[in-house]
């Protein structure tokens, strides 16, 4: 049963990676990375049960606590340092205005 769950999680991770590689915008990548992180937390948990030593959940706990920092950092460096310039796209003055 854990095997089936692990297989499902791996499949979901592949799908999230496809979105991560494909983009197209940076936000899609951040979203995919974030969702990939949640799936990794689950996979680490299930892997503990698969090997019969489920007492190593501290790593999953760590990711559950800290994984949103990357997202906050992205939001912050977008909005407060870079004058709201839309990423992956230069010369977009109207968006720069929206950012302020």
């Amino acid at each position, binding site marked *: 049963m854990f*095997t089936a769950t*692990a*297989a499902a999680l*791996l499949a979901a*991770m*592949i799908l999230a*990676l496809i979105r*991560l*590689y494909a*983009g197209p915008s*940076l936000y899609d*990548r*951040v979203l995919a*990375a974030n969702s*990939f*992180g949640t799936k*990794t937390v689950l*996979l*680490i948990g299930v*892997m*503990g049960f*698969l*090997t019969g030593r489920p*007492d*190593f959940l*501290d*790593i999953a*706990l*760590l*990711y559950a*606590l*800290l*994984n949103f*920092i*990357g997202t*906050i*950092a*992205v*939001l*912050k*460096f977008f*909005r*407060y*340092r*870079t*004058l709201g*310039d839309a*990423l*992956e796209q*230069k010369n977009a003055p109207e968006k720069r205005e929206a950012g302020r």
Partner: protein
Amino acid sequence: MESAINVALLLFLAGTAFSILRRTTLFSVVMLSGVFSLVSAALLVHLDAVDVAFTEAAVGAGVSTVLMLSTLSLTARHEAPSTRSRAIPLIVVFLTGLALVYGTLDMPRFGDPDAPIHGHVVPRYITGTATEIGMPNIVTAVLASYRGFDTLGETTVIFTAGIGVLLLLAGTIREPGVAEKLTAMDHHLVLRVVTKLLIGPILLFALYVQFHGDYGPGGGFQAGVIFATAFIIYALVFGLGTASRALPGRAVRVLLALGVLIYGGVGLVSFFFGKNYLDYSVLGPTAAAGQHIGILLVEFGVGMTVAAVMVSTYYAFAGQNPPIGDEEW
């Protein structure tokens, strides 16, 4: 299933590495390298290296992404199209790769219990940990006691790197008043509330990791990074000024040196009892109890230095003046 997970995770790593190679938007590169670290942590758990996975998780989940993003915000966001020839590096890389693959043909097969790496001192460490040190986590025992010298060296390297960052960036840190205004996220009520909720548990978890390292995965290196991450989140959301009121930069610099001093000092104490440097067995009533006290103190020093290096690095990065030439981005 075991080997399927192994193969799948290795393929994820390769795919992510190729994707990093192809992207030219540096923000995407940073996000991908975060995912790379995540997958490698899962793979390390799979390969039984729970302590290593814990360290990779602690570092990769926050600190390295935040440092990379702050560098990007100070430098550039796009990679300029390269004008160099691709052929020569490709040939070099292929030849090196082939030579390395040829080298692996003589290596013991993956998982071989009779491989030479498992001989020598390793059986001694595994059997000795229970009797000589008396703690369940073999990795912590080897790290802090059997190979305490190595770890002292590594801690000193981290300390030196922290000093290097401060030397490079301290001259260009901007006025604290300006920094405060620029860096707080006042409009984000959701983020402020959730961050407030989470900082307590993160600090508690760091303490758990610091002092539970003898029994489970964890120890000073991991706990130091987690402590630092808590302060970095605080600084990200509530502003650099608020964070440096809670933990002033001067105090961080004192802790930076104090951690290494604690480590070295514990070693000196055993001199006074007529033992070798970093031999903790004299510190307690019995040898095992002494080892336990010594390892706790040493790990505490490591945690202090690592946390201080990470926090002072973040302070230095976040306090930089944004470059003047914004328009060219």
